[in-house]
């Protein structure tokens, strides 16, 4: 159970890092739309252990858009703060962060003071193709040809005035003179 949780969080963190969302330390810039339930960034996952974590999911120190309740967070009301994250049980959603590919919002579920589930919503529009760009079209190998053909000009390594004389380009120039 712990290992799969760790794996899930690790994957989520990895995914979040890819799209540039920071889950810890300083609060990211919150866009004016979409008020978050809890600013995970401000809720002290990496916090000072002497600091008392808040019991309620809403009303953290992020300071923006206080109290609008459309976050959908639940509070199962059980054991609460002991150990681990220091968060009361419930589902916590991070700030909705806008980046060039869309809006990403991360959520975690806390039970018994530990993260038991994690999720992320991410853009699914066509723009997300820019996150995974098409593979660079590589040069393809082919057989080296040696042909004689009628051409208007020849491109090659720079010839000197002397080596020009014997060059294909000289033959063309002479024919056109």
């Amino acid at each position, binding site marked *: 159970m712990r290992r799969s949780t760790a794996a899930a969080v690790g994957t989520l963190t990895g995914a979040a890092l890819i799209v540039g969302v920071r889950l810890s330390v300083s609060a990211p810039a919150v866009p004016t739309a979409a008020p978050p339930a809890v600013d995970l960034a401000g809720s002290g996952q990496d916090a000072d252990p002497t600091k008392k974590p808040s019991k309620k999911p809403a009303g953290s120190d992020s300071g923006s858009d206080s109290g609008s309740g459309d976050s959908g967070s639940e509070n199962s009301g059980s054991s609460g703060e002991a150990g681990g994250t220091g968060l009361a049980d419930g589902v916590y959603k991070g700030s909705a962060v806008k980046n060039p590919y869309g809006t990403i919002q991360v959520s975690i579920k806390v039970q018994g003071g530990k993260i038991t589930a994690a999720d992320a919503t991410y853009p699914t529009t066509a723009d997300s193709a820019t996150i995974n760009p098409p593979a*660079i*079209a*590589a*040069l*393809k*190998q*082919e*057989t*080296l*040809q*040696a*042909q*004689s*053909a*009628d*051409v*208007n*000009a*020849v*491109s*090659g*390594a*720079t*010839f*000197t*005035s002397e*080596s*020009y004389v*014997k*060059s*294909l*380009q*000289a033959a*063309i*120039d002479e024919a*056109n*003179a």
Partner: protein
Amino acid sequence: MHHAEHVMGTVVSIDLADDLPAATLQSMIGDVCAWLHEVDRRFSTYRDDSEVSRFRRREIDLADCSPDMRHVLEACADLWRETDGYFDAYAAGPLDPSGYVKGWSVEIASARLAQAGSAHHCVNGGGDIRARGLTAEGKPWRVGIRHPWEADKLSWVLAVTDCAVATSGSYERGEHVFNPRSGGPARGLRSVTVVGPDLALADAYATAALAMGEPGIGWLAKLVPDGYESAVVTDDGRAFSSPGLPAAV
């Protein structure tokens, strides 16, 4: 009208296909030749009195340099960054921007021709080509890429209209391109041709890829989204080309 001018240590072939009076075409050719000789006087490292030689000897400051010199130096700096140091005007020690100047001077020559009213021409500066419009027969310009071993054969034939074709290779002037990582002559590629909108850039990209050796093949692929296609031959005779290379059918 056709003209071949010996200048910059090489030969520049000018092919004008416009339906214009001979006197007009003649004067256009005259203007291009005057431009090319001006470039030679300013940028030839073989002339003691050229601006580049005086700049190298620190007889003049950057601030005293001509606008063209400052443009070339800035372009070489940009390309040094863009090619991760593989295009390096200081590769041989003292400043030598010739790897940029040749392609640039032909690109400018073509621009001057266009401005003077020539919509159809092909200028070949020692193997670096800038084409515009169509031939006198109304067809795209057929440009052959010289075979890297057989001097009288072609390894590819391209059909181009408004386009530049630049080739960098080790088979003419020997080991003149350096690999900055190894500190020695470039190894691995015998011929690199880059095809795209700007001859100055195509020339520099071809030179940089040659300097990189085999990793250059992968690097060239990254230029495709910017409109630069390429054709490469390795030292051991393998040929590669980008999917969009404008091969003649």
